């Protein structure tokens, strides 16, 4: 009796875990919703001399599609206070000049670690207008709580 129950319990719960895995795998590989995992590297001490970071800023690359080339450093974002139109698909290309930072926009699924030596990418389509808060969510020093900016979507 107990054996039988244990078998049922383990089968159902492991089954749920497997279903979970399948959903995550499907979202990652079929829907392209996987976590930010870009693999290019860069010399963290020469960031400002290397393209594209020698020219950080917001660039329109197609109709209502933008690339934001951004440098994170203690304790700010360059460029800061960005503006994009409603419905814009925005590709962020980021790296850090010093320590590890985070790039998070509350209210969206934008959340990525930005580390020195590595280029990180994340994309998002801003469907709703508004003033979005951008924060660093990895401790980066004494002014970490001041490291924020905004994205205005009009």
């Amino acid at each position, binding site marked *: 009796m107990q054996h039988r129950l244990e078998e049922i319990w383990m089968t159902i719960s492991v089954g749920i875990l497997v279903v979970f*895995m399948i959903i995550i795998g499907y979202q990652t590989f079929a829907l392209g919703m996987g976590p930010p995992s870009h693999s290019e590297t860069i010399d963290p001490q020469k960031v400002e001399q290397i393209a594209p970071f020698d020219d950080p800023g917001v660039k329109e690359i197609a109709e209502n599609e933008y690339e934001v080339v951004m440098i994170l450093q203690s304790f700010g974002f360059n460029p800061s206070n960005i503006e994009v139109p409603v419905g814009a698909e925005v590709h962020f290309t980021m790296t850090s000049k010093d320590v590890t930072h985070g790039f998070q926009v509350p209210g969206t699924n934008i959340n990525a670690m930005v*580390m020195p*030596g590595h280029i*990180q990418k994340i994309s998002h389509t801003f469907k709703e207008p508004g003033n979005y808060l951008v924060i660093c*969510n990895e401790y980066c020093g004494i002014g970490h709580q001041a490291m924020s900016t905004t994205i205005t979507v009009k």
Partner: protein
Amino acid sequence: MEQSLRETIHENPKKILGVNSQDAKVSLSYLTVAFVSLLIGGILGLVQGLERAGLIQLPSWLNYYQVLTAHGLLLLVVFTATFSIGYLYANLSHALGGLLPKVRKLAWTGFVLMIIGVAMVVTMIVLNEASVLYTFYPPLAAHPIFYIGLVFVVLGIWACCFGVFINYRHWRKNHPGEVTPILAFFTMGVFVLWFFASLGVTIEVFTLIPWSMGLVETTNVMVARTLFWWFGHTLVNIWYLVAISAWYVFVPRIIGGRHFSDKLIRLVVILVVILNIPGGFHHQIIDPAISQSIKFLHVFMSLSIAVPSLMTAFAMFVVFERTGRRLGGKGLLGWLKKLPWGDVRFLAPMIAMISFIFGGAGGIVNTSNQLNQVIHNTMWVVGHFHITVGVSVVLTFFGICYWLIPHLSKRKLTPKMNKIGIIQTLIWTVGMIIMSGSMHIVGLLGDPRRTSDTTYGGHEAAASWVPFEMLFAVGATLLLIGVIIQVYAVFNMMFFAPKGNTEYPVAEPEDDETPTPMWTERWGLWIVLLLMVVAMAYVVPIVDMLLNAPPGSPPIRTW
């Protein structure tokens, strides 16, 4: 020998067993350090809670991140490690009939090394030379003495590991053809994990020492981070193994029942030991430089650890039901009423187990790639580990105190102390529900962790977090009251409670239990399997990180 020992246990448990007094001193010393750390760490926790709620401002000579570094290290490393060692060495002494003299010496050596290490680390934090948080991610560079202190702590833990390995081997040599007592088996599992967990972080720290001294110019931040989580995540399951040792072995006895199948318990221990270390990658799900397929593999590896947890849930349920029915509980749930809810030695670990259902569910969210992206580095995570370690593990530890400490100090648990324990447990539970519950919710709204009080320039998103941050302060206040009661109880039972004998409540097997097969003792094989799993998980990504490494980072101080 084993058979006759079993019979003696049946007939008169108190006659032969017990922790001998020299070993008791070792354990009591470790427990003393544990609860002093808890007190200091708890006070710092309240400071954080109040600061984040905007209710206090720190003086100019103290910054939030110093406090947070100390809170993290004192509670996460010092409290849990010293408690576990004190408790497990007592178990070993009890189960194997005393520690060998050289093992006792190793335990004392470990104690001294750890104290020296912790003193170095804490001094650097206090001097504001090491505000790098407990994860000390480079290129944030602390003072070299901070890292050297960490080396001492690791050496201390290794001394304890070797002590356990030596005593265990000695016993097995003298008892050919027998399986070790279950408590010794658990202890072995924990220290095997401690040893292999600490390898990664030791390599990391050894590369950071010359770098922080300026002898080496740059370091690889990605590799350092990965090695850190090899350790950091395994630590989590070290606590977990310590906690379930109490659930499986002591709780059944306390409720007047028998323990679950010995063989299955050992299987759980073996699974936790083998499957554990690769979980570390779920702390790096949104890192660059790790491919999505590797991350997906690690979702699988992290979730696999749920399997022994599910087995544990089932086992505990069976033990409770069986015991409750034996005590006369009727109907579908009548057996629940027969459990000794008024006994703190049961209530505390019981709440710990219940909270693990929520903690485990939260863990599954954390490790699932896309969901992780929503909560990574938000207060959700802080809520998660205050439920898992702060309740599932810590309440189990608290519950253990009420029999372990009187036993070691040859005193008694009085009904009054039991009542204090019940009150403590309830305050702790309510405090954690409030604090951790609000942390979970506000995390979903985006409130970042490890961030001192800020309005982000008056932004409305940040304003929406404020009510929840007020609740952190409420929960934190209750928790500090809980800490104070617990520390009082511990030292009262250590030095002032009435003299007497307290039972070491080890549960016995069911009468009809089949003997445990000898293959469970094949530790060499378990370690080979552990290493194979580690290799599967780590060789590809680390080789990739090294081969495709960017130019390294110099040491940077941003505080």
